[in-house]
């Protein structure tokens, strides 16, 4: 047939068949069939054009052949994908002879609307180019014959390509790995994007190519073509294959929908895909359809990760590794780390709950990956593990080490993938791969949650603007585990509520912490933090330099402890929205709001006092939870700073109220809580001069390092002094029999039967540690700052001084010697610096300027002496 007739016919045939492929896909939704049919169509079209422009015989001419490479070479050609074609010439002369005809052929393909990416090379150029151009070499991994000299193709296909792929294996593998890592970095190393690119994102089609390329380069055969000896491996491969088929269907759908090479699953496309049931053939809710997407993407990413691990240096056989572990590990240890992989001591037995949790705890500590055998042991063990779930606090004690370790997020993701996180905390299941659409979030709710935890752990090494400030704040927390648990649960309500999610999250968190048998204080911190977790973000949208904004926000937060955890939660929450969400502008505003509110809470403490007759909501909660009469509570709380109520649980307040009633018979009542980390002493007594100083001195004399302290007084003159201290020498922690003697000593100091000064003199001379027990080369310098404006009743004195034994006693004794009463004391430590705020009065009024000067001079003389 002459070209004048053959060409219009070829064009018509292409359009007709192209429409048929499209219609077949639209009616069946079968992606695999579509990309194969599309590939066959392009093959046929290319052959027709070859016969028109190059050689009437499709197997000629000698010395020139046309190959399909890349996606076309794999026979996975999506409707609007680029076509990679290689015109292979036996010699430069053959290339020269057919150059114009090849140009005409490719021009015609462009005119048909096909995006052809054509290359012409001689055989020797292919080998040379592959050295400098790894992408070209990689594209040759997937190839098939289209037209031309078949014998030459056979030689190229069976001998030359395998030969230079083998020769270039190492650089090609490195190139594949480098492209993989760069691509995953670009997408934040997570597949859980709200609007994923189904080709490029982790878990996308490109990942499926990576696992096949690595298998071909290392073994000479794509993974999918290898026989599978293990049931688990066969199951994983099947999951992978189903996932790839699903993504191919989605890609065809996206291409036809937008009439271009568009691979992003935007929200509207998700709606349309779910409505058409792409990949499933039946309409389904979009949330469910997206969960299917993430499940398939997870299977594809998992296989790519396993392939990437093969690039690591070869590892000894498992039997050798176990022998090596057994010889190096303590007896009975269920898990060992070997060459970056976590292996089980006995992979053949059913994994125990303790062993499973040890695996994840080690993973969180080391960022190690699971060995394949460990993964297999965990897969399918869910029911068995569920039967061994420990009750209450014991369960929390298994989860806490995971949360607190530096690579917690990675371990949690892994636990989630195996269904173990949902088993431990079923409330988490509702946000599994959950898509919540808004203009800001980039990740699914579960992934966002893991990222918040990751951002907190990365604070220590953060070079982000203001990161150091938040890192210091994080280091100050007594219970970072409660903040981390709050982050894990803060959005769980999104899975159960169409409206505001916070109340649902609070209810679910309450249910979790009750199961973990949390104390009332622990429970309050978690639930209250979650209940206000959006408040700081909301305050940032107001004028943060307006005193009223700060006052209103401080009223919501209530206490510096809550402010600290809220600021950190907000930092992590914003940062986990997407990579650019926490701009330097926002980070600075967040920090400034934090310090403004912190200062407000410290400086306005005695302005807001409790008046029982107004019966605040908090007071009503205390009445409800207390066995003590309301009148007793009223008498006790009258005149206390509101902060006291905010920072104590209802049971603590009622307990203190009851003890205060007993002061008519005893000089002091004490509560001593001993723990390995921080001990706490609460003393209730009638106020007297030097009382706080004497108590601080007595603690110091017993070798206790005071870390924080608070002193509050009510209208009746009853003081509640709370000291939190470390027991460096284990006097109390190791010797329970010392507790009564210690409490007796406190009572004697209060009643002045024993002098704190005398105790101090008898103190061993080697007690030189600071409050925190830390000594640093750089010492904080002394800073005294009086403030007469923040409080209407008192003068505030902020003392920042190098921490030293007995410092608090020295400060407070000096105040007393000048006739100053301490209304409130807030004692804190940061590194080697003592940071203390005192609300002082003299004869019931603020300190005169002259007294301030004398007091400052005396303090300087005492604190600056060598």
């Amino acid at each position, binding site marked *: 047939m002459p070209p004048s007739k053959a060409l219009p016919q070829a064009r018509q045939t292409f359009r007709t068949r192209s429409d048929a492929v499209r219609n077949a896909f639209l009616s069946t939704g079968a992606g695999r069939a579509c990309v194969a049919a599309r590939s066959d169509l392009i093959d046929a079209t290319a052959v027709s054009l070859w016969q028109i422009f190059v050689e009437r015989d499709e197997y000629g001419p000698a010395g020139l052949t046309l190959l399909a490479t890349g996606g076309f070479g794999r026979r996975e050609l999506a409707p609007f994908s680029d076509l990679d074609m290689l015109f292979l010439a036996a010699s430069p002369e053959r290339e020269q002879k057919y150059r114009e005809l090849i140009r005409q052929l490719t021009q015609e393909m462009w005119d048909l609307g096909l995006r052809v990416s054509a290359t012409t090379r001689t055989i020797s150029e292919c080998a040379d180019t592959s050295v400098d151009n790894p992408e070209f070499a990689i594209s040759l991994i997937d190839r098939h014959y289209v037209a031309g000299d078949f014998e030459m193709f056979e030689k190229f296909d069976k001998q030359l390509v395998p030969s230079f792929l083998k020769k270039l294996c190492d650089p090609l593998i490195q190139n594949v790995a480098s492209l993989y890592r760069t691509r995953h970095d670009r997408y934040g190393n997570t597949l859980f994007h709200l609007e994923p690119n189904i080709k490029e994102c982790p878990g996308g089609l490109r990942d499926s190519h990576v696992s096949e390329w690595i298998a071909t380069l290392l073994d000479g055969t794509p993974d999918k073509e290898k026989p599978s000896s293990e049931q688990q491996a066969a199951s994983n491969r099947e999951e992978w294959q189903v996932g790839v088929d699903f993504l191919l269907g989605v890609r065809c759908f996206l291409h036809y929908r937008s009439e271009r090479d568009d691979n992003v699953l935007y929200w509207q496309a998700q709606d349309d895909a779910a409505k058409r049931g792409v990949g499933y053939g039946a309409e389904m809710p979009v949330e469910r359809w997206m969960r299917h997407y993430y499940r398939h993407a997870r299977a594809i990413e998992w296989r790519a990760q396993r392939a990437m691990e093969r690039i690591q240096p070869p590892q000894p056989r498992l039997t050798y590794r176990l022998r090596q572990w057994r010889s190096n590990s303590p007896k009975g240890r269920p898990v060992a780390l070997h060459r970056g992989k976590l292996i089980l001591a006995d992979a053949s037995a059913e994994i125990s709950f303790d062993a499973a949790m040890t695996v994840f705890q080690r993973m969180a500590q080391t960022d190690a990956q699971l060995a394949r055998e460990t993964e297999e042991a965990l897969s399918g063990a869910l029911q068995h593990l569920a039967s061994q779930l420990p009750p209450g606090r014991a369960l929390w004690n298994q989860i806490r080490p995971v949360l607190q370790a530096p690579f917690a997020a990675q371990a949690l993701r892994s636990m989630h993938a195996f269904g173990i996180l949902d088993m431990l905390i079923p409330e988490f299941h509702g946000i599994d791969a959950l898509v919540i659409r808004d203009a800001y979030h980039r990740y699914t709710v579960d992934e966002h949650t893991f990222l918040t935890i990751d951002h907190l752990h990365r604070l220590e090494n953060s070079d982000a603007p203001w990161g150091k400030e938040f890192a210091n704040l994080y280091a100050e927390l007594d219970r970072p585990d409660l903040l981390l648990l709050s982050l894990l649960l803060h959005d769980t309500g999104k899975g159960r509520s169409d409206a505001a999610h916070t109340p649902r999250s609070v209810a679910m968190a309450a249910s979790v912490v009750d199961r973990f048998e949390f104390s009332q204080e622990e429970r309050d911190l978690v639930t209250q933090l979650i209940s206000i977790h959006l408040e700081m973000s909301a305050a940032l*949208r*107001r004028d943060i*330099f307006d005193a009223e904004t700060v006052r209103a926000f401080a009223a919501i937060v209530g206490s510096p402890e809550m402010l600290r955890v809220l600021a950190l939660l907000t930092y992590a929450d914003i940062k986990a929205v997407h990579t650019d969400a926490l701009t330097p502008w926002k980070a600075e505003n967040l920090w*400034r709001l934090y*310090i403004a509110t912190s200062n407000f809470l410290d400086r306005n403490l005695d302005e807001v006092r409790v008046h029982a007759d107004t019966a605040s909501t908090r007071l009503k909660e205390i009445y409800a939870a207390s066995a003590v009469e309301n009148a007793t509570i009223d008498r006790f709380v009258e005149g206390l700073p509101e902060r006291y109520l905010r920072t104590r649980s209802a049971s603590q307040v009622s307990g203190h109220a009851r003890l205060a009633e007993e002061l008519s018979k005893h000089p002091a009542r004490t509560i001593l809580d001993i723990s390995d980390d921080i001990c706490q002493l609460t003393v209730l007594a009638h106020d007297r001069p030097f009382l706080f100083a004497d108590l601080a001195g007595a603690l110091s004399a017993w070798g206790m390092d005071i870390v924080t302290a608070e002193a509050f007084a009510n209208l009746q003159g009853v003081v509640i002094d709370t000291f939190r201290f470390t027991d460096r020498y284990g006097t109390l922690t190791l010797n329970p029999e010392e507790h009564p003697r210690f409490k007796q000593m406190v009572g004697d100091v209060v009643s002045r039967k024993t002098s704190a000064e005398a105790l101090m003199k008898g103190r061993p001379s080697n007690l030189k540690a600071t409050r925190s027990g830390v000594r640093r080369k750089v010492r904080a310098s002394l800073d005294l*700052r009086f403030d007469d404006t923040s409080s209407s009743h008192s003068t505030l004195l902020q003392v920042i001084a190098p921490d030293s034994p007995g410092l608090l006693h020295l400060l407070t004794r000096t105040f007393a010697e000048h006739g100053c009463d301490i209304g409130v004391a807030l004692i804190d430590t940061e590194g080697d*610096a003592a940071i203390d705020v005192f609300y002082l009065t003299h004869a019931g009024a603020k300190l005169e300027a002259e007294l301030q000067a004398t007091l400052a001079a005396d303090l300087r003389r005492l604190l600056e002496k060598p």
Partner: protein
Amino acid sequence: MQKIEAIIQPGKLEAVKTALIEAGIDGMTILEARGHGRQKGHTEFYRGREYSVDLLPKIKLEVVVDDEVLDKAVEAILTAARSGKIGDGKIFISRIDEAIRIRNDERGPRAL
């Protein structure tokens, strides 16, 4: 066509956006900014460290509008952003010669 550049308090952004949308203007660009005019910064102390605030956080909002709706847009911003205090911000207006919609090459007010 005119370009309106408004420097406003961050806390007024939502109100200004709403007012502009009600005025029929739904395209705008928002930039996080810092600066000060007559409203000067201040210093805050935290744990012995001094944090000076020389430049205060602001939002810069840019809108290009047809000449006919300029007054309406400016009025919407003025009303929504005003608190009467120092620091409410400024509005700058300048001429725009051409606007082009990249997607389809539409030009002039139709491209807004």
